[in-house]
């Protein structure tokens, strides 16, 4: 994954401090040049499955990596329920708490197909910028339940309100373009409220497009983080009992032990970078712990509406659009 020809700038993790490599001037004195940047930038996709996307971004400044992370969290739009019209709520959960819970439900709708609501928009919205849902649930007692039954599922009907009870109300021509599963709630097993016989919910929900900086419910990612690639070097041979002690100081799978009972670094990538080794005087001189200063391991986990790779690309496009709008404004003057 990492290029062996590249001189990796390191940050050493010593017992009580973090020390920069004495030969590393990159952060302070480097002159920015687009061609140099292009030759340095490397991206490697490591994993992309239902748990999320993991990729390496190599050769960038911390501010750039952090900008991408911040953009994914708060500047990539997504759809979420913004208004809740409560016609009836006789459950024990208060109106405002219920409305807040509805807002946090993740929706499948692709935000790129919708427009933002503007200040001129009417309250009902249009088919381009609004999705509408209704939630009508009434809890009743099951007639066929026997006197000796105590399980709520047996004696009550609809006593648990799930996100699956949400019904989509297509506006205008929306029914021809989208499907209920294509815009509705991603999970149908989110518990919204519990009811008892006689309790009733009758809500109309309005979903709009928004940004994570306005409210976290609009954020398209569950998590978007980065960390620096760890590097562990063994300075001397560690064998026998000490080898197992060394192994126990790191995350599982980081240190391996060969047939001669000698420790070796198997895979430093997934180390948690704790400094447990320094607690043991017999082995604390045997390793050098470091991190590669410009090797960022990004982990992006989507809420579900957009794929994580799309979220990253959208984030970079947002930054590009910001730059473009300011360039245009400077040129217009």
């Amino acid at each position, binding site marked *: 994954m990492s290029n062996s020809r590249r001189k990796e700038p390191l940050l050493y993790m010593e017992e009580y401090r973090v020390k920069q490599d004495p030969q590393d001037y990159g952060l302070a004195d*480097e*002159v*920015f040049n*687009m061609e140099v*940047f*292009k030759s340095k*930038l*490397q*991206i*490697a*996709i490591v994993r*992309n499955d239902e748990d999320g996307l993991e*990729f390496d971004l190599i050769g960038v*400044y*911390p*501010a*750039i990596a*952090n*900008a*991408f992370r*911040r*953009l994914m969290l*708060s*500047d990539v739009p997504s759809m979420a329920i913004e208004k809740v019209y409560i016609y009836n709520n006789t459950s024990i959960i208060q109106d405002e708490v219920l409305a807040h819970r509805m807002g946090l439900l993740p929706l499948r709708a692709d935000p790129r197909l919708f427009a933002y609501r503007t200040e001129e928009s009417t309250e009902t919205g249009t088919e381009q910028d609004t999705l509408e849902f209704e939630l009508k649930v009434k809890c009743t007692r099951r007639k066929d339940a026997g006197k000796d039954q105590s399980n709520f599922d047996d004696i009550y009907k609809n006593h648990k309100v799930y996100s699956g009870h949400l019904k989509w109300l297509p506006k205008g021509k929306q029914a021809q373009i989208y499907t209920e599963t294509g815009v509705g709630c991603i999970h149908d097993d989110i518990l919204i409220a519990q009811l008892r016989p006689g309790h009733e919910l009758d809500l109309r929900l309005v979903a709009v497009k928004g940004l994570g900086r306005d409210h976290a419910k609009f954020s398209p990612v569950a998590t978007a983080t980065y960390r620096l690639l760890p590097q562990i070097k063994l300075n001397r041979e560690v064998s026998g009992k000490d080898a197992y002690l060394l192994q126990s100081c790191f995350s599982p799978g980081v240190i391996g032990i060969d047939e001669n009972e000698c420790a070796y670094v198997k895979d430093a990538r997934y180390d948690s970078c704790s400094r447990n080794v320094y607690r043991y005087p017999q082995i604390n001189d045997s390793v050098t712990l470091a991190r590669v200063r410009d090797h960022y391991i990004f982990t992006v986990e989507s809420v579900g509406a957009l794929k994580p*790779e799309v979220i*990253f*690309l959208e984030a*970079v*496009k947002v*930054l*590009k659009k*910001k*730059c*473009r*709008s*300011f*360039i245009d*404004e*400077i*040129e*217009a003057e």
Partner: protein
Amino acid sequence: MGALAELAGDEKNGEGSRTFVFMNEGHTLGNALKTIISRYPEVDFCGYTIPHPTEQKLHFRIQSHRDRAVDILKRGLEDLEALCDHTIVTFETEMNNFNAMKVENT
């Protein structure tokens, strides 16, 4: 329009020193742009601040002895835009390679 303004007080300092005010921007753009512009050899000073956390304003300062501050700002924005373009292209090709590999292995 009107998302970019200039702060008063630099009239006597020539064209090289300016503080720009970006509306509705924050650390995301500010820090990224600062790291690029402060690495230009003709720039003496570049820094940014968010004067108040509840105001969506970014104050961006550039001082140079050679060029106009506006031109440096424009160049910085263009470089950041090119950087984004290159990142998008690189990411897309890597993603396509990764998906192709995945298909091969299954």
